[in-house]
């Protein structure tokens, strides 16, 4: 397993390199420059040239990549073209917010989603199953910005229970938690439905297996049969979906971050792409890629841990 982990890390390094290479290729392709976006006609050619130089884009691509990795190795992800703030600082400010949002949203999804999925299996074919089906599919299909707006309207405007915007005061944990509830719901609700349906699907398949009959034949309580014998197996396919999802929450939460005015990696990267603030784009992509690889590798290891057959297949 450790050798597998080592191989996986080596692979991750290669992936990072490939991703950055692709990013540089894209920078080369995509039209537009930061000065024009920010200033429109006031962007003087001198200013444009200065920014291009500041972003290092006047160098040959090989040099750019080499510099990027050499600096990144020393913890320097470059500086923002405008504010000249280190990109790493911006990432480190935005990242915890997004991570928190993602993790909380995912916890909703995991707790609610799995519960709904399991309930649907337990009550398979009954009205409850069907009602849960309707609810979870509706969760999936209502776009998150619509959810966000209505949550805002109900809980912040009408009821005034929760704050409408922001991520809470720094250092004030209760206010941060309050500020997290609505956005995490808006992000998580689709996932709730998603997980509920997936768990139901894989559980149904497993509940028909012989070993479930064995577990029942030993008089195991139905709860144990469902959770330990069926769910444990059923969760395996959902793990890779969750991992890919958590990886993409970094960038897909933009809409919700916008509506709730929360800072975050998604906003950072999307904003930087649209503003052609390439040092921020590059630094953030390196960071998010590393994070994504971490998550997906952890997921791979978790799958291998949960399913010994996968472990053996990978050990070969």
């Amino acid at each position, binding site marked *: 397993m450790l050798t597998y982990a080592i191989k996986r890390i080596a692979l991750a390094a290669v992936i990072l390199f490939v991703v950055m290479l692709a990013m540089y290729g894209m920078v080369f392709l995509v*039209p537009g420059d930061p000065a024009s976006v920010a200033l429109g006609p006031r962007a003087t050619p001198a200013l444009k040239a200065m920014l291009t130089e500041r972003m290092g884009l006047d160098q040959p691509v090989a040099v750019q990549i080499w510099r990027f990795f050499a600096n990144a190795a020393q913890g320097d992800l470059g500086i923002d073209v405008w504010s*000249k703030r280190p990109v790493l600082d911006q990432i480190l400010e935005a990242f915890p917010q997004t991570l928190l949002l993602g993790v909380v949203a995912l916890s909703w999804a995991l707790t609610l989603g799995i519960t709904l999925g399991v309930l649907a299996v337990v009550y398979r074919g009954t009205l409850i199953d069907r009602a849960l089906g309707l609810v979870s599919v509706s969760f999936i299909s209502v776009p998150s910005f619509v959810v966000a707006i209505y949550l*805002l309207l109900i809980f912040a405007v009408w009821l005034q229970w929760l704050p*409408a*915007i922001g991520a809470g005061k*720094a250092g004030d944990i209760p206010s941060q938690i309050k500020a997290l509830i609505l956005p995490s719901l808006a992000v998580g609700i689709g996932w709730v439905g998603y997980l509920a349906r997936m768990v139901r699907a894989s559980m149904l398949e497993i509940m028909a297996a012989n070993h479930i009959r064995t577990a029942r034949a030993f008089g195991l309580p139905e709860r144990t049969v469902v959770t330990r014998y069926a769910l444990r197996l059923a969760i395996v396919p959902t793990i890779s979906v969750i991992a890919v999802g958590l990886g993409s929450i970094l960038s897909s939460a933009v809409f919700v971050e*916008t*509506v709730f*005015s929360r800072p975050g990696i998604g906003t950072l990267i999307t904003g930087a792409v649209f503003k052609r603030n390439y040092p921020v784009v590059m630094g953030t992509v390196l960071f998010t890629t590393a994070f994504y690889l971490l998550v997906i590798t952890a997921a791979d290891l978790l799958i291998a841990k949960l399913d010994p057959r996968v472990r053996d297949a990978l050990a070969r």
Partner: protein
Amino acid sequence: AEGDTLRIRATADFQCLDPKNMIGELDEIIPRCTQVALVRLGDMRDGNKWQPWGAEKIDWIDPTKIGFTLREGLQWSNGFGPVTPEDVKFSFERIAGSDSAWAYQFEKLDHVEVIDARSGIIHLKEAFAPFMVIALPYYGGNIICKAATEKVGGSYTTEAPAECGPYRFAAWEQNQKVTLTANPDWTGPKPAFATVEIYIVTDDQAAQLAYEADAFDFTKLAVNATAQIKAAMPANSTLIEAQSTRYSWLVINQNAEPLKDIRVRQAIQYAYDSDAVLLGAYDGLATRSTGVVPPTSPFTRASNLIQTRDVEKAKALLAEAGVSDLTLTLVALTDSTTQAIAQIFQANMAEAGITIEIQPTEDAAYWAAGDKTAGDGYKSLELALMNFAGGIDPTENLVWFRPDQIGIYNWAFFDSAEFESLYQQGLTEQDEAKRKAIFNKMEDLMEASGDFIFICFEPYIAIHHSNIKPVIMADGHPDPVMFTKA
């Protein structure tokens, strides 16, 4: 306002506070509070009148010289001593002729002469009437501390090395909030609020909801929210409806193959339905513009040459030009207003038999579309919807249509020598009536070329709690310093 705190909303975080490199909304609002400028502009609804601010006295000595005396007791923070004319000289001269985006405002600056510890003279290269309102009140007009700036290497970004303004920068939660507190050392007129909290909310919908949830006291709104908000006005609130300096127009590129014939361009001008656009995209809150000079300005043109829509005429012109089955591509930004204009325009043209393909384009690619340094695409660009937050003086808006702007911002390839010479006259002419004639003629030239359709100056809509009285600058940004309690 909650007690002594003013809470306003901004649409994006700031990036750079150094006047030389500042770019956006908050970049400019903050220095307006924490730095000092010689003059200050009043509310745009009151005609952008200027008043001395950092200068206790400021006046034209002759058409190329402005003399000023700094207010008594202006002190830099962080122990950098009093504000001096030396600082003024440093602040202005570092921008003039530099690569700064605001260099154009100081194009006519020759130098600043220091007279004594509090007074100096601004020397211009030639007479330039609008200097007082174009250059001095904001952006490059903000005075920074020479000693402090040189100490940090000649420029700074997010942290001003020395401040001198009614407020001090107190706290920053990135992408969330900026807090300013009253500067105890400020000797000028005291601001009405001890604290200003600026909340960063990108989305207009969200901002409106947040306002209703009492997250702040003042916010700009989306134009299309006006009807609903008027119908159900939140308690204790006041709505601001005004004309902004943001003007919007359609570019018809005379250089593009199918548009080379002026009759085709005119056909488009005739087929354009202004009423539908204003109603559909602006909820009828704007009136048709007659050019790029704001209607609030005394220099504004009385009317368009083509005042009424005439589809038959358009068809006739097309037939005359021998054009049929005309298909044109319209480049338009992706915001909902622009897209609404584009679609209405598309329908207008369809009535005249012209097919319009709308090409929604995000910002950066949009700017590249007409940029001669980004390939040859700008030559064959056909139609584009443009808008731009203009200045106060007509020259600030007309400058973009000069021949040397072709391939930069003059996407229409509008190439008029007469226009250029009128522009130069307009810069130096001091007589208001003559200036008006010059500018009106310039706009006539633009329209007659068939290269432009003037759409409107966009309405400015904002809402605020009735217990405050906001002040809004010509660029649409609020000026927290001048807000008062009502």
